[in-house]
């Protein structure tokens, strides 16, 4: 009985753990289905670059208003849009491919962001912005994260078919809906930005993508069906959040990295033993062919 209590006590006894759990669950439910679409569209690197690109904007918000949620959120969104726009410009008007353009810009963003923060803030401020602090989430931030999560779920529910079709064969959507595929892409991009801003509050700019992408990658090894991948990714993200927070509580690990550690481990284990496209599945296929 006491062992079972160990699973719940931290969240019963401490309000900061409850807030952290609620924030992580909200991020999981809203972000993981989006992560599945990002993985299927081969946009994981773009997402990673955008999450780092938040930093200069967040840093400017920090320089202007300190650790203010509003200022850093607005700064982060603006920076992500500017970097996204610059990447499109570089890809279109130079011979740089998308991945190189984003790599150039995100490293530049990281450099600018860290330099700006070091102008005024301490190392603690820098660590807070780079890695987040989910245990320090207050009511206002929790409200923002939850709102973005609800908005994401509603938008995905409404545009689910368009998102699926656009990822599979964008020309089909372009022809039958006469050009709406471009605004479908823009809505997707907006959702990605919002989720990154939400995740940044909890996981920092370096690991903002962790709860979105890692469960999505893990889920791909368990099912062929896109309708199964979304809920499965969300469930894996929920389990990662819960387990990561417990680990951080009992083993005194930093909470954001602990969550990412669990989600990443699930991804690796899935790649080894999952029934679809894993190492085990490949070995089985080879044995059958032999």
């Amino acid at each position: 009985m006491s062992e079972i209590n160990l699973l719940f006590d931290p969240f019963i006894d401490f309000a900061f753990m409850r807030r952290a759990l609620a924030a992580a669950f909200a991020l999981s439910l809203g972000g993981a289905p989006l992560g599945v679409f990002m993985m299927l569209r081969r946009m994981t690197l773009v997402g990673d670059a955008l999450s780092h690109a938040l930093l200069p904007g967040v840093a400017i918000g920090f320089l202007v208003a300190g650790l203010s949620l509003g200022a850093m959120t607005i700064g982060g969104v603006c920076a992500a849009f500017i970097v996204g726009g610059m990447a499109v410009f570089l890809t279109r008007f130079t011979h740089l491919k998308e991945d190189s353009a984003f790599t150039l810009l995100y490293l530049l963003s990281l450099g600018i962001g860290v330099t700006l923060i070091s102008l005024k803030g301490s190392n603690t401020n820098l660590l807070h912005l780079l890695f987040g602090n989910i245990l320090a989430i207050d009511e206002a931030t929790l409200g923002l994260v939850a709102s973005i999560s609800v908005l994401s779920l509603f938008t995905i529910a409404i545009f689910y078919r368009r998102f699926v079709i656009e990822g599979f064969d964008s020309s089909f959507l372009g022809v039958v809906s006469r050009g709406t595929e471009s605004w479908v892409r823009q809505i997707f991009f907006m959702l990605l930005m919002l989720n990154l801003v939400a995740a940044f509050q909890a996981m920092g700019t370096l690991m903002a993508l962790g709860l979105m992408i890692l469960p999505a990658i893990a889920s791909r090894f368990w099912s062929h069906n896109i309708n199964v991948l979304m809920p499965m990714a969300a469930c894996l993200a929920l389990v990662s959040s819960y387990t990561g927070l417990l680990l951080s509580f009992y083993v005194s690990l930093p909470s954001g990295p602990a969550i990412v550690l669990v989600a990443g481990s699930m991804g690796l284990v899935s790649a080894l033993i999952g029934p679809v496209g894993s190492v085990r599945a490949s070995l089985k296929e080879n044995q059958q062919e032999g």
Partner: protein
Amino acid sequence: MQTPPILLENVSVSYGPHKALENISGTFQAGSLTAVAGPNGAGKSSLLKLIAGLVRPRKGRITLAPEMRDKIGYLPQSSAIARDYPLSVMQTVCIGFWPELGDIAAISSSHKKRALKALEQVDLAQMKDRQIGMLSGGQFQKLLFARLYLQDPQILLLDEPFASLDGETTARLIGILLDWHKKGKTIICVLHDLLLIKKYFPDSFLLAGKCLGTGHTHVLFEKNLLSFDLDMAEIIAPKEEKKG
């Protein structure tokens, strides 16, 4: 006189500094079956994308008959489609219902019956639950034809639909194409195979950045614009004569 469903007037298409099509004019008549031929980089795919509304002309005008605007079916080259997407054969063919169902309406049992019938037309009904990643190139192309069945367009734009397919699958898909032609659909198909063009396509549109010739396929063969002695790569646009 009836307006042709597709009318091109001095149309040019560019991607940044690269000119894909330059001053193309021509018409595609209702119910015609036209092959678009030319060397690599001739602008064949761009012509289809232009008609499909996926790219806009830099210059000139393209006019589609109003009743045809929402009835276009487009099949891109297979490389433009994510073959590893986690969709089953049934889920993929049902995408053809999107113009009818939109974002919210559910796929009913009658839709599923129609989808199964479309799969039967291309001999894929037995594989309805199989993942598309497990299909061969030919089976995947058949699946896309089944999706077109459900879409039921009046104008069909097909970009190299028989590329790297075996003879049997090509024959099966050509049969479907001819069937659609008989039903009065307007079909424009990018092709490299001169034998197929001569045998099955009454009209041709010859491109090399510019339009080199258009009209009855046998006339283009008589004029030697199309010839079995001529490699596609040898079809080049004649240089413009200098004025003065």
